[in-house]
């Protein structure tokens, strides 16, 4: 039963889609406040190196080490986000180039690899890992059990965060303020919302989420350190935000679609299915472009989509 190809592919889609969920969820928060952060890839690597460092250097039971590692991942990545926040919100520089700078600074040839070299990471798999576990006792359910309820704690955490973030954005007063800041900062300011503070907080939260996404790689998927181990997933997360029309629920669907595409090379190869490597390796990237084209066109037609003030710095007028 558990060997059924259908089940294997779907379970892998969720497993490999989980970092995408965290990263895209964080980016949704940042972009809802009006700030694009192209540094996701770099922040994920910062989170991955932070988590790997803690998991390698602290001995102890998994229940102690792993939470500390995840918190470290969040702090590392949020520190990267803080640079972007300061430059784009306080100094009002171009958000696109600042985000790129963050990815270059933190990315494969930057701080993350520097720190990994300094701490001598990647020699062996980390001792404490997030393994698959049947948290709710529903793992024996037919079909759904192995797909949904035999995942890692990180996946369960991502579901919780998707639900909480959805409620936060659409059902709370703070969420309303957040959307106002992203749509029309002038209006938000005039009714007493602190625009700059809101943007700082959501860019930092976005960074922390990207950090957890990185921890998924260094504590579960690989689970060790490799320079540039996120392999462009941060950029796919950026595309998922557009794919999901800046909504957590739609984004989740897209993340699992792309998780499935990224995992096909492992799942199909393990079962000896003959599909050219070239095709499987490029599939997630090709599909990102295809999906983006389709979504961008329909979004333009139906007036759906991006927060109106996305990418625009807010300059308070003098009174």
């Amino acid at each position: 039963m558990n060997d059924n190809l259908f089940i294997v592919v779907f379970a892998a889609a969720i497993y490999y889609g989980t970092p995408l969920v965290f990263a895209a969820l964080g980016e949704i928060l940042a972009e809802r406040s009006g700030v694009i952060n192209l540094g996701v890839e770099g922040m994920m690597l910062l989170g991955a190196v932070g988590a790997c460092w803690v998991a390698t250097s602290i001995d102890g039971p998994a229940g102690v080490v792993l939470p500390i590692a995840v918190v470290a991942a969040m702090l590392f990545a949020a520190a990267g986000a803080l640079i972007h926040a300061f430059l784009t919100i306080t100094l009002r520089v171009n958000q696109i180039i600042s985000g790129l700078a963050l990815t270059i600074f933190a990315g494969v040839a930057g701080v993350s690899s520097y720190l990994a070299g300094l701490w001598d990471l990647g020699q062996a798999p980390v001792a404490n890992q997030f393994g698959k576990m049947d948290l709710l006792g529903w793992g024996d359910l037919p079909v759904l059990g192995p797909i949904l309820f035999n995942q890692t704690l990180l996946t369960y955490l991502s579901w919780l965060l998707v639900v909480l973030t959805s409620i936060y954005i659409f059902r709370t007063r703070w969420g309303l303020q957040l959307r106002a800041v992203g749509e029309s900062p002038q209006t938000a300011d005039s009714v007493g919302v602190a625009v700059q503070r809101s943007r700082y907080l959501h860019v930092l939260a976005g960074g922390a989420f990207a950090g957890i996404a990185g921890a998924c790689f260094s504590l579960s998927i690989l689970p060790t350190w490799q320079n540039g181990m996120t392999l462009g997933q941060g950029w796919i997360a950026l595309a998922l935000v557009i794919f999901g029309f800046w909504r957590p629920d739609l984004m989740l669907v897209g993340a699992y679609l792309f998780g499935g595409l990224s995992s096909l090379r492992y799942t199909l190869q393990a079962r000896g299915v003959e599909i050219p490597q070239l095709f499987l390796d490029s599939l997630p990237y090709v599909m990102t472009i295809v999906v983006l084209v389709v979504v961008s066109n329909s979004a333009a037609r139906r007036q759906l989509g991006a927060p109106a003030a996305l990418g625009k710095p807010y300059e308070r007028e003098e009174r």
Partner: protein
Amino acid sequence: MRSTFSGFRLEPRSHLPRLINWTVPIGSFFAALFAGALLLLMTGQNPISVYQRILERAFLDAGSLSGTLVAATPLLFTGLCAAVAFRVGFFNIGGEGQFYVGAIFSSGIALALGRDAQVWIAIPAMIIAGALGGALWGAIPGFLRAYLRTNEIITSLMLNYIAGVISVYLIFESSSFWRDLEGTGKMFPKGKVIPPVAFWPEYGIGSLVVPFGFLLGIATAAWIAVLQRRTRFGYEMRVVGGAPTTARYAGMRPGRVIVAVAAVSGALAGLGGAASVGNFRHILDPKGMQQSGFGYAGIVVAALARLNPVAVIFVSIIIGGITNAGYALQGPDFPSGLVGILEGLILFCTLGGEVLMRYRVVRTRGVSSNVAGAQ
């Protein structure tokens, strides 16, 4: 009501000092070195000795400047690639992939022409093939942006990964025309060496070795400067970049201009790929190209040059020096990752410096401005 984070605000300067063209890049560069030094200090390294070794390996040691030009040549082209596109507000992050495709095309044509080709055919053919490959790859995000309203940043980035997968496939996962299937190539996958007639020349000036590709890059930069300032196409680029609506009212076709800019930008990165094959690697080397990341570094070059094509020439030598030192100094006592750190910091500081030149920083007096804001 008070804003929590700002103890100061930025006021536009009424008068922009002309020196901005020099002070921002130079100031940013040193600010970045300073920030990098702090990071080195915090992590227990000695910044002075690290910087001293970079300076020696980049510019001062015997033969180091020739090595710097080897890194500066591809950076010159990818820097031009980013500078041309960013100036029009087209954020082509795809220089990396366009560079790979240029390398694939130019090595392909060199191999196809074989060892009996004339030099004056082989080298121009490589130049044209490289530019063509880059232009085709670069035109895709341009077309998608212009006619299907798709964000060019993500599409051009995805195309980098796709080009990377294709080049790895050609050498490591197939028996392609590019792969060396004789001798050790059977055991260890590697690219077929292009025939010696297709090797690009190098010119010795004293002890300095100047690659032909670098000279081609200088000529290209000059041509881009003329194109931008003296031609109709350059004028259209400026208008489309500054005011798309105005461009449409003036009878221009912004879509066509964007596709053309994207293709030119891609062609420049593709030329870089051709120069890399012709002058230095002489094979299609996917892993080597991916490790270098010249396409991404080109964005740093362009930003530090303030998108000015002639300034790109000089900046490519500086960034090329850092890159060259990074290769040369790889080892246990030299931190890896320092090149990216410095590049990222240079980009951050250039952005920040730009703002500080355009605006004056005015301290807000806590209470009075809060009262004013509350009205």
